[in-house]
């Protein structure tokens, strides 16, 4: 059984942006402050898979900023260009911070060591030696990833409920024979009292 990565770039139904709207937004972009967003300084590329289904894998472009030395918050897009869809987010914490989490909470998080060492996680456009310095730190961190838009399913809009994502933690998980992979604890989310969503 092979893993499948068929991320499609969603074609969102809708009219192209009207000129008036575009001009207006040029004005707002110039006048307003973008405080928290200006802290985003880094682009990291990696792969995530769904916590309940390792065969579904998604390319994830992270745009990250530090809140302090031990904490990064990242916006995740399906593509790194100006047409990228915002599909999720990730929080990245140092091991020290991770260890302060209650056990119940730890289940939402994954380690980064393998991803970094295997080269699956990298910083596009940055020379090797410089990347290495930062990635050495990232290797010791833990991440919590939530995706809101199942682009690999071909959804052209962000439908359904959020998905907890996991990252590669050993050889053979990316596009290879998945039969030997350990069972990941599935975290299925459902909206109690409103609807229950079929995640398959």
């Amino acid at each position, binding site marked *: 059984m092979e893993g499948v990565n068929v991320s499609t770039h969603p074609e969102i139904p809708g009219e192209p942006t009207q000129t008036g709207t575009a001009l207006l937004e040029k004005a*707002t*972009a110039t006048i307003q402050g973008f405080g928290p967003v200006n802290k985003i300084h880094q682009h990291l590329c990696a792969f995530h898979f769904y916590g309940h289904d390792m065969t579904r894998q998604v390319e994830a472009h992270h*745009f990250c900023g530090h809140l302090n030395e031990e904490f990064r918050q990242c*916006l995740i897009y399906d593509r790194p260009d100006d047409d990228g869809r*915002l599909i999720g987010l990730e929080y990245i914490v140092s091991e020290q911070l991770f260890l302060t989490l209650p056990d119940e*909470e730890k289940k939402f998080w994954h380690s980064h060591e393998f991803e970094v060492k295997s080269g699956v996680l990298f910083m596009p456009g940055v020379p090797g030696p410089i990347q290495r310095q930062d990635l050495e730190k990232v290797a010791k961190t833990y991440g919590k990833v939530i995706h809101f838009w199942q682009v690999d399913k071909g959804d052209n809009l962000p439908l359904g409920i959020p998905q*907890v994502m996991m990252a590669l933690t050993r050889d053979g998980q990316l596009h290879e024979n998945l039969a030997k992979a350990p069972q990941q604890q599935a975290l299925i989310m459902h909206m109690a009292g409103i609807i229950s969503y079929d995640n398959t």
Partner: protein
Amino acid sequence: MATINGTGAQAGEQIPPGKPMSMEQHMLDKGAQMLQSLMPIKHMNQHVCTFALYSHDMTRQIETHHYVTRVNQDFLQCAVYDTDDSTGHLIGVEYIVSDRIFETLPPDEQKLWHTHAYEIKSSLWVNPRVPEMVVRPELENLAKTYGKFWCTWQTDRGDKLPMGPPALMMSPQGAGIGVVNPVLVQKRDNKYNISSDALKSARVEIAEPEWLNPQADYWKQHHDKGDKLPMGPPALMMSPQGAGIGVVNPVLVQKRDDKYNISSDALKSARVEIAEPEWLNPQADYWKQHHDKGFAVEVETTEMKKRASFP
């Protein structure tokens, strides 16, 4: 019992905890920034400040800062933060679609969305620093949209790190549990030196959408219903206090005052002369010392004792 709630930050405690950025990290960041294009981020072109409510507990209301990217005339995607400066915590993501797109969604999906008409017309939704005139055409457009907002970090309850599963958020509305606490609005207005009331009058001309899909704002149809019979274990109650989460929503107070034709404010001035107790035992009003933690009664099953012990 372990819960997923945060331990709650003490006043002045850092959210998130962690060492300050090292010089080395600053340099790495700067290096990356110079080499990488960060295109999607540069494509954000609006800052919107508004309010949102937790759908599972509409008394929890937050000021939000949306950094918006328009994808096409019918779709926008927003990164949401809890403040507009560089210390802002990334608390979630909101998607905004036109009414045209919304009508194509299956009913079960529509239940996760909220309307924007009230929020915009009442001026809870503003673009800080932009003259109202400039942004007006955009508001007219957005008044007809629907939003879907997931909150992934509940900093309003003091979570030091993002805990638990995402929470679905709802938009402010004009009545019932959808009304935003005016104290929150005033605080926001003061920060930007604006007046929501004044803006609201100006926005009277913004056309109401002809129809608001009733699947959106799901709580309106399926909430605000009292328990018809006394249900569940008892809930421990607390008394109103003067600060923090102990403050009663002025809307509730006004409603009561109107009923009895009294004015709490006037009475408050008169009661200034009532002596304060010399000491209030800190064990009472437990939540004040323990940062807004309440008590919930839980019920667990246990073995019944079937025999009386021998006297």
